[in-house]
């Protein structure tokens, strides 16, 4: 039923119906925005990248193959766009402590829960930021979207074995970054304990 509806919206959008495409934007805004946010780590940049993704999808709708899932196609566009954006920024690997964190508080949560959630998001973003853009994208598609190796390979224009090796490398890097972060925090706590109080 949902797929029929989606196919109808795609077909109407192909005829130039903006409203039909706006329905697709409404339906898939969350997964696309989440991917962009996880890739870029900044709410405003993620909004811009997600908007650009939908714009590119709308302009390139003729290239969409209806036998593939529409959301997979969208996420593929978003991944490539974010990877290009990060490369253009000439982002180098930054020490984990130096990375800024973003919080996205949910108004429905209590202040304590919102702070805790914000800290968790921040921690995850810091970890993801230690990965190179393609590895990061593979990790996001694998863990947040539960994509198979084959789907990730299709989305990122890689081979399945390349995806497996990238994920393996990314897992190791994430665990290493986690350990480093933990050691850094423990050192900071020790330093604070032994320092004289500031007056």
């Amino acid at each position, binding site marked *: 039923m949902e797929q029929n509806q989606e196919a109808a919206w795609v077909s109407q959008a192909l005829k130039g119906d903006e409203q039909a495409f706006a329905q697709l934007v409404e339906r898939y805004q969350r997964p696309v925005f989440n991917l962009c946010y996880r890739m870029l780590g900044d709410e405003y940049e993620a*909004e811009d990248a997600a908007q650009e993704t939908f714009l590119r999808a709308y302009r390139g709708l003729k290239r969409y193959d209806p036998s593939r899932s529409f959301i997979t196609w969208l996420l593929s566009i978003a991944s490539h766009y974010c990877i290009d954006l990060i490369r253009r920024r000439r982002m180098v690997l930054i020490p984990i402590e130096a990375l800024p964190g973003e919080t996205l508080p949910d108004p429905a949560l209590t202040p304590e829960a919102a702070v805790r959630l914000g800290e968790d998001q921040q921690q995850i973003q810091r970890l993801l930021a230690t990965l190179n853009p393609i590895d990061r994208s593979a990790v996001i598609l694998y863990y947040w979207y539960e994509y198979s190796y084959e789907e990730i390979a299709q989305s990122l224009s890689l081979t399945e074995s390349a995806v497996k090796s990238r994920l393996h490398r990314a897992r*190791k890097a994430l665990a290493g970054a986690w350990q480093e972060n933990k050691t850094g925090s423990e050192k900071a706590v020790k330093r604070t304990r032994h320092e004289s109080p500031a007056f």
Partner: protein
Amino acid sequence: MNHQPFEELIFAGTELSLEDGLRLQLHLQSCEQCLALAEAWRQVETKISTSSLVEPAPGFSTRWQQRLRQDNMRIQRRQSLLVFAGGVGLALVFLILLALTVLFAYDSPLEWLLTLSNRLVVIFTLAETFQMSLIILQSAIPLGWWLSAGVAVMALCLLWIFSLQKLALNGRHPS
């Protein structure tokens, strides 16, 4: 000790076979380094798996539609500019070709100047004849008719400017 085969198992990302699982467990009991790595990965995996999808601020699709309209305008402006630049380019090529034709059609600059002055005399004579015929027409046609014709020409000019602005500069936006 070679930790590589055990790291392969820790970061395999899939369910391990019974044999591999036991082999890894045995190694972790005696290797603090791999145990710390396995524990770190377990914590990261838990963190990721409990993290939900983040949502954009409300009104995302409305903002997208606004952006699409702006993008349409930008594309139309660029197309208008391209058409204008193409027109100017063609006119320039035409003028250059005309200038070359004129230059090669005459033997000397004096001959060219004489022909030009002759042509100007013809143009001025034609303009004078047109002026005379207008004076005759002015006395033959009543003033009211002249005013009506003037108003009609002005209305057509306004219509032309309005349609040019609407179609070429701003573009057509389906609601």
